């Protein structure tokens, strides 16, 4: 957050940030691990802010190490906790700090300050990423709902947090968590149930897509009422170069903040030759490791635990190999001992060097913070979960991508940056990665849109973010995918990277409300009891004929899974929200391979009395084409010469 506001184009003097006045009338609820406000200026009282919105009915409760009346103010306006579900599932009482909103983990402090933290000059993680840290909606008020601990979150606690947040009248909910494993059916996914009720009350629910990438259909929080967020990089790196004895250099990534190793090459050894290929504590042979750099494989223990294990065995440093599926990506960690993480491919080359030499040597050069055009940005993180939608393939997911790699934001004073018990450091800011980090960026931007466009529904806000998103990186190419080193697909980046200043003026929006979501649930073929979980009065009997593909989504996902189906049509309704009430929009279609796409009508003419228009897309399989890919992609762009309203098209074969 020392860089993301400028990366997103946010400026106090123009665009969305100015149009929204920083979202001073908006309350962002954050369901997470709580908050650690003491000594964190991101959550300090701000004399420049007006009193909190009077409609907000929340409050701050107190508990061990958390004095709600002292720690809450006109920035941090709400703090509650919910732990009964987790205690029941664990079969034991959690620690005393679980019975307060205090964040002893760090995750919730990080996400809430990213969404709406106040500006803090001179922030940084040691010397890394220094600058002015600020949340995306610097004027927004933060209400934290602690439903998670070190070991995750019980669904019953999450639902309790949703219940209170809705009652408190928050405007935006930021939810950086999700189901473990395969995305559950919507009626048994209590996060989806709570989010449905929240969205029905006009609350935008921004949720993380998950970190289970890069495999297909790994995204969670995939109900159409979620604003589902993937993760991508910034134009900033923290390079730690491995320099081998033969001169070969491999750029890794690191947040090591201690004495450097120096230029002199020192002996290099593979962990597997010294007792533990993954560098587990207590398993490395000190006589084989002492004074050397150790190459460690991924897995088994935490990344940050590997250099610590090397340190305990007397080693000089560590090189951490990434996993094969992550491609060129390696994960940055705040190491307590000299270490850097390299890609799987680079680690293999280092391993071959070790095997080829009788006395292999290396050193690690720590280059600090580097901001610049190389490599291009954004790029999709390998870990970012992917579409298609496992439960409703006709609903395109994830929706958008946002910064989620190496994000600096506030951190708890109750936990170390590595989360290792052996790490005694305490920091006010930490740099971590995940869709948990990209989600609150979008939550903050949604808060800005909520204030700038108070008449928009949650679906309209999502539509604005999706149809104005960009898909080209800083070098002019399609946003890349770190797992493949090729161009990413819309099932990784969604409709693209959010562009807040364009989203405030999208031209057209694809709106949807509770009735549309009920139609969607009915079209899925749910039983009466399953649908009634979302509301007892819901009946599908009078809603026959609705189609999942016709849900008014700002993206298209078509399934040609059966050879019997040759033609699919999907209907959409758009509303003119531009300043020209008489605007005329014309369509430009980029058809996916293997499909002929036609639109009717080809021009949408709006007028002061006809603010909405309907169109139909027809997707016909080309009989002459033989598609070999599982998925092909295209787009439809509506333009009036001023606005470009673009929707991705995905075809699953």
């Amino acid at each position, binding site marked *: 957050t020392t860089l993301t506001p400028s990366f997103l184009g946010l400026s106090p003097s123009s665009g969305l940030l100015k149009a929204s006045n920083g979202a001073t009338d908006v309350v962002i609820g954050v369901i997470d691990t709580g908050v650690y406000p003491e000594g964190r200026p991101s959550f300090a009282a701000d004399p420049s802010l007006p009193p909190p919105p009077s409609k907000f009915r929340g409050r701050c409760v107190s508990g061990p190490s958390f004095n709600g009346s002292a720690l809450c103010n006109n920035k941090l306006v709400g703090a509650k906790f919910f732990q009964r579900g987790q205690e029941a599932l664990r079969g034991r009482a959690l620690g005393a700090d679980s019975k307060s909103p205090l964040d002893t983990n760090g995750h919730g402090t990080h996400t809430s300050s990213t969404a709406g933290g106040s500006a803090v000059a001179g922030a940084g993680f040691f010397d890394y990423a220094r600058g002015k840290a600020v949340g995306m909606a610097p004027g927004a008020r933060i209400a934290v709902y602690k439903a998670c601990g070190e070991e995750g979150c019980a669904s019953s606690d999450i639902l309790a947090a949703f*219940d209170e947040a809705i009652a408190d009248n928050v405007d935006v909910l930021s939810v950086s968590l999700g*189901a473990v494993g395969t995305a559950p059916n919507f009626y048994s996914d209590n996060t989806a149930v709570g989010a449905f009720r929240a969205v029905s009350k006009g609350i935008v629910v921004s949720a993380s897509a998950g970190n289970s990438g890069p495999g297909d259909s790994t995204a969670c929080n995939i109900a159409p009422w979620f604003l589902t967020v993937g993760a991508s990089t910034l134009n900033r790196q923290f390079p730690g170069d491995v320099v081998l004895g033969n001169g070969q250099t491999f750029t890794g990534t690191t947040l090591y903040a201690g004495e450097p190793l120096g230029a002199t090459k020192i002996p290099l050894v593979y962990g597997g030759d010294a007792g533990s290929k993954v560098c587990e504590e207590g398993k490395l042979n000190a006589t084989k490791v002492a004074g050397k750099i150790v190459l460690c494989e991924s897995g088994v223990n935490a990344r940050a635990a590997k250099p610590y294990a090397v340190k305990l065995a007397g080693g000089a440093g560590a090189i951490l190999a990434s996993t094969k599926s992550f491609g060129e990506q390696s994960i940055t960690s705040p190491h307590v001992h000299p270490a850097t993480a390299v890609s799987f491919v680079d680690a293999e080359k280092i391993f071959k060097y070790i095997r080829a030499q009788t006395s292999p040597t290396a050193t690690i050069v720590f280059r600090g913070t580097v901001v610049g055009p190389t490599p291009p940005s954004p790029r999709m993180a390998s870990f970012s979960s992917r579409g298609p939608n496992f439960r409703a393939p006709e609903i395109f997911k994830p929706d958008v991508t946002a910064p989620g790699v190496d994000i600096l934001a506030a951190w708890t004073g109750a936990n170390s940056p590595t989360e290792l018990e052996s790490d005694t450091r305490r920091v006010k800011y930490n740099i971590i990665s995940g869709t948990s980090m990209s989600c609150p960026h979008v939550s903050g931007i949604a808060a800005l849109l909520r204030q700038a466009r108070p008449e928009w529904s949650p679906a309209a806000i999502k539509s604005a973010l999706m149809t104005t998103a960009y898909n080209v990186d800083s070098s002019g190419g399609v946003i890349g995918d770190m797992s493949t080193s090729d161009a990413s697909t819309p099932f990784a980046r969604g409709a693209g990277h959010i562009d807040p200043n364009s989203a405030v003026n999208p031209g057209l929006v694809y709106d949807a409300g509770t009735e549309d979501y009920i139609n969607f649930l009915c079209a899925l073929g749910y039983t009466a009891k399953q649908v009634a*979980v979302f509301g007892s009065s819901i009946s599908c009997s009078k809603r026959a004929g609705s189609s999942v593909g016709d849900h008014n989504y700002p993206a298209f996902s078509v399934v040609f899974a059966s050879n019997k189906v040759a033609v699919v049509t999907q209907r959409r309704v758009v509303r003119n929200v531009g300043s020209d009430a008489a605007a005329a929009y014309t369509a430009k279609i980029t058809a996916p391979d293997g499909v002929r796409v036609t639109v009717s009508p080809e021009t949408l003419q709006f007028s002061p009395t006809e603010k909405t228009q309907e169109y139909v897309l027809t997707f016909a399989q080309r009989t002459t084409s033989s598609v070999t890919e599982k998925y092909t992609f295209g787009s439809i762009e509506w333009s009036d010469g001023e606005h470009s309203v673009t929707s991705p098209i995905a075809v699953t074969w």
Partner: protein
Amino acid sequence: DVEAQSSYIVHVVEAHAPRLPRRGLLTTRGYGSFLRDRIPVEMSSPAPSVLYSYEHAATGFAARLTECQAAQLASSGSVHAVVPDTMQELH
């Protein structure tokens, strides 16, 4: 011989949901008589314990129930679904 309890989230038919006491943090009250009316005495040990009563994000409650109690509630005309509570992960 005491049957083990597990955590469930019970989605209740709105018309059968009790009027909850004043909205308050960590409310557990409101569903006592609902449970007594729907779980036969011979199934009532160990007694269900309500963790939360939901009013806004869902209509229903979270509770510790035996498998038999959960099945009994699920077959009740007053309940839409009884979903086992599960852990979710931070991202």
